Each structure stands twice: as structure tokens, then as C-alpha cells.
């Protein structure tokens, strides 16, 4: 095994190093120099980001977790492992075992990860694998977002009327700081609302039930979140599934990056964000180096979103 990976695979050839390759400089007096092509580099970056995502959020029971982590480490260290259909098939199989082990408790992005690993394995076995992977990426993201929009708009009884975000902003501790910062709630109001929203045992009823205090800004935030998320998800679904003649590839990337850049600022599921961004890279061709950089930057930004309690810090700063 040759230890190399990130520099060779993704970041050293044209587009990633500021210093030009020596071969290009030597030929500068001749015909227009062409940077050396490295077929499948976008796919390599997509696969590398996926392996990193596997390491950032270890998952599964004891009998698959160490194996997933070990394969991911080897993928990052060894280009041959990264490009091994067998290794990606093994990841897909282990993800399937992880899902089956405690069905139905796995989160949805674990399923998407399994499909994505499977799609990578298939692309590595076929001629024109980059196109196959780009196709799978578009359809997997598009279909996942179609189902997400379907649930929110047609199947759930409490999303479109705003109840989901009205209650979640008040009761989910992960959204508490944002509810105060953007929704204009005081800490005391939030505590009182949480108490008022506590479940009583079946049949129990308070003589004088407390009312729930929702400032106008909080109601506005809940409605903006409700319709904003539907608009973003529908935009991603349409951008991914409409034919290229109707939607340019740049629109697809803008929609996906916009979704990740806004949603994961609030939603506590960075793993989903990393996966979507890795899949987005899988749709790039070799010339789209700038977009590749944007995706990698977005991947890192989502790490910061998840690790920095920005709303809590802003709230603390506001209080002096």
C-alpha cells in the first residue's frame, strides 16, 4: 500500500495547489499548455469526502463499527482502496447490517449512505464510471428530496399548519438558542413554555392549564422555517430530477449548496450535510475545479456549524 491520498487524489493537481506544475512552466513558450488530466479526480474527491464523513460520525454496533472505521482509514491512506469496488461494496453491506440491527431506529441519512456506497461500488465496476456516479448522485439526492417534500406537504398532519416548528422551536433543546436569538423569546419565557408543553399522563387535566407564550417573531420564525424548508427541498428535488436541458448543472449545485449552507446551520444532523456535499462533488466533471473547492469549503463549514454553538455564543454576547 502506498501512503498518499489527499494530496495526490484531490488537492495537488490543477485547481488545488497555487504553484503551477513544472511541466506547464517548461512548455510555456510552446502551444497552450494543458494541465495533466487525472481521470476520475472529482469522483476521488467525492469518495474521499465520504470516507471522511464515515470517520467523523462513527456508527453501528460493535460488530460493524470498527470495520467501517478501518476501511474508511485505509481508503484515505490508499488510492487503490479508495477506488476499490469491493471496499465500497463492503461499506454498503456493513451499512445495511447497521440498519437491520436495530430497525427501524437508524436515521434516514444512514440509508442514503448505504445507497451512495452501493452506487460508488457500481460506478467503479462500469466503464464510464464517472457518468454513472453523477447519474446516481442526481437521482439519489433528487428522490430523497421528493420523499422529504411529500412527507411535509401531503403525508404529515402537522407540518404545513406550522405546528411542527412552533412546538420544536420551543421544546427541542437543540433549537433553544436559535428560538431565543431569532424568535425573541426570553430564557424565562422559554422555560415556562417548555413546562406548559410537557405531556400529562393520559386522562389527567390541569385545573388552570398554563398558556403558551409565543412572541410574534417566534411565530414568524416558525412559518419561515416551515415554508423555507419546503421551498429549498422542492428546489433541490426539481433541480436534480429535471433534465439538463431544463436545468443547468450550475443550478443544481447552487440549490444543493444553498440547502446545505442554510439548513445545517440549524439542523443538528451534520452527517446528512456531509453526505449530500460528497454526493454533490460526485456530479462534477474534471473542469469544475472552482465548484469542487466550494464543496470542500462547504463540507468544512458544516463541521464548524456542528461544533460551534454559534446561537448560544451570539445570545451570550447580546446579553453582555
Amino acid at each position: 500500500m502506498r501512503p498518499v491520498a489527499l494530496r495526490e487524489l484531490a488537492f495537488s493537481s490543477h485547481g488545488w495547489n497555487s504553484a503551477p506544475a513544472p511541466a506547464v512552466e517548461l512548455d510555456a513558450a510552446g502551444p497552450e499548455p494543458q494541465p495533466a488530466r487525472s481521470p476520475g479526480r472529482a469522483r476521488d474527491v467525492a469518495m474521499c469526502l465520504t470516507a471522511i464523513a464515515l470517520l467523523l460520525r462513527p456508527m453501528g454496533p460493535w460488530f460493524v463499527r470498527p470495520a467501517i472505521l478501518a476501511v474508511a482509514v485505509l481508503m484515505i491512506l490508499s488510492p487503490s482502496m479508495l477506488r476499490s469496488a469491493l471496499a465500497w461494496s463492503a461499506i454498503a453491506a456493513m451499512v445495511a447490517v447497521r440498519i437491520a440491527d436495530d430497525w427501524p431506529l437508524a436515521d434516514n441519512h444512514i440509508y442514503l449512505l448505504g445507497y451512495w456506497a452501493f452506487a460508488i461500488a457500481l460506478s467503479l465496476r462500469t466503464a464510464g464510471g464517472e457518468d454513472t456516479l453523477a447519474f446516481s448522485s442526481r437521482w439519489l439526492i433528487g428522490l430523497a428530496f421528493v420523499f422529504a417534500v411529500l412527507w411535509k406537504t401531503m403525508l404529515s398532519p402537522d407540518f404545513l399548519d406550522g405546528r411542527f416548528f412552533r412546538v420544536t422551536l420551543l421544546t427541542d433543546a437543540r433549537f433553544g438558542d436559535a428560538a431565543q436569538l431569532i424568535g425573541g423569546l426570553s430564557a424565562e419565557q422559554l422555560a415556562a413554555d417548555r413546562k406548559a408543553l410537557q405531556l400529562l399522563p393520559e386522562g389527567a387535566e390541569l385545573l388552570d392549564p398554563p398558556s403558551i407564550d409565543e412572541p410574534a417573531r417566534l411565530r414568524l420564525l416558525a412559518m419561515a422555517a416551515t415554508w423555507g424548508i419546503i421551498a429549498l427541498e422542492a428546489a433541490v428535488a426539481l433541480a436534480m430530477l429535471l433534465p439538463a436541458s431544463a436545468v443547468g448543472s450550475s443550478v443544481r449545485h447552487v440549490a444543493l449548496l444553498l440547502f446545505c449552507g442554510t439548513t445545517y446551520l440549524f439542523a443538528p444532523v451534520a452527517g446528512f450535510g456531509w453526505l449530500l456535499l460528497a454526493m454533490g462533488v460526485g456530479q462534477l466533471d474534471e473542469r469544475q475545479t472552482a465548484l469542487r473547492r466550494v464543496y470542500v469549503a462547504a463540507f468544512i463549514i458544516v463541521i464548524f456549524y456542528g461544533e460551534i454553538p454559534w446561537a448560544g455564543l451570539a445570545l451570550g454576547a447580546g446579553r453582555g
Partner: protein
Amino acid sequence: MKMLAPALLVAVASTQIALSRTFDLTAWKGGGFGMFSTLDHAGYRGVDIVVDAPDRSESLQVPASIELAVARAAACPADRMLRAVAEAVVARERRYQRPVSRVTLTFWRADFDRATLRPSERPVRTFVYDVP
């Protein structure tokens, strides 16, 4: 070949919708991408446990040893899941040498009033397991 992974996604997500309609599988789980779409999730679902024996009728708090089984049953209260909880309860009671002849499980979930948001707990399904 390139449609295989997307086809698998559609098959699983469609099955998840069918299971949510037939077995009350929560929208958040099962691969249907219904997360963040409804309040009907683990925080507002649960399973109450009552153990009966000739001289005993007792409501149990969910013990740590069966938390996973209860979480699975709360996410998808199908017979198989609820039976697994009941059998785990019986096994635990026997470990502690307590009599048990029947386990009654009540799956409930919370509803939130559209205007006031006031929550109420609503029993959805009762499962009775007579110890063989």
C-alpha cells in the same frame, strides 16, 4: 445498472410509507425521508407497561435493559415489536423472581392542539401478552 441504487431508494421509501400507514411506523424512521416533517416522533411516542399476576398488578417504568426494545416498538408498534418488549419484560421479571402472568402494553402518542399547542396523550393501541 445505474438505476439500481435509486430504485432501491424508491422501494425502501415506498415501503416506509406503506408501513407508516399500516403499522404506525413513525415518519422519522425507516428510510422514507420523513424526518423533521411531524411531531409524531420518539419524543412524543411511548409504550406503557403493566404487569399482572394473581396477586399483582403493577405499572413498570421502562428499565434500561429493555430500552432498545421499547424504542423500536414505539417507532413501529407492530405485533412483532410489541411481543419482543413483552417477552423482555417477562424475562426480566423472572430474573428478579417476581410473578408475571400477563403483560399489557399500551402504545400512545401525543397530539398538539392546532391553535393552543396544548399537548394530550392519546392511546393508540393495546397489546396483551399472556405468559405461556
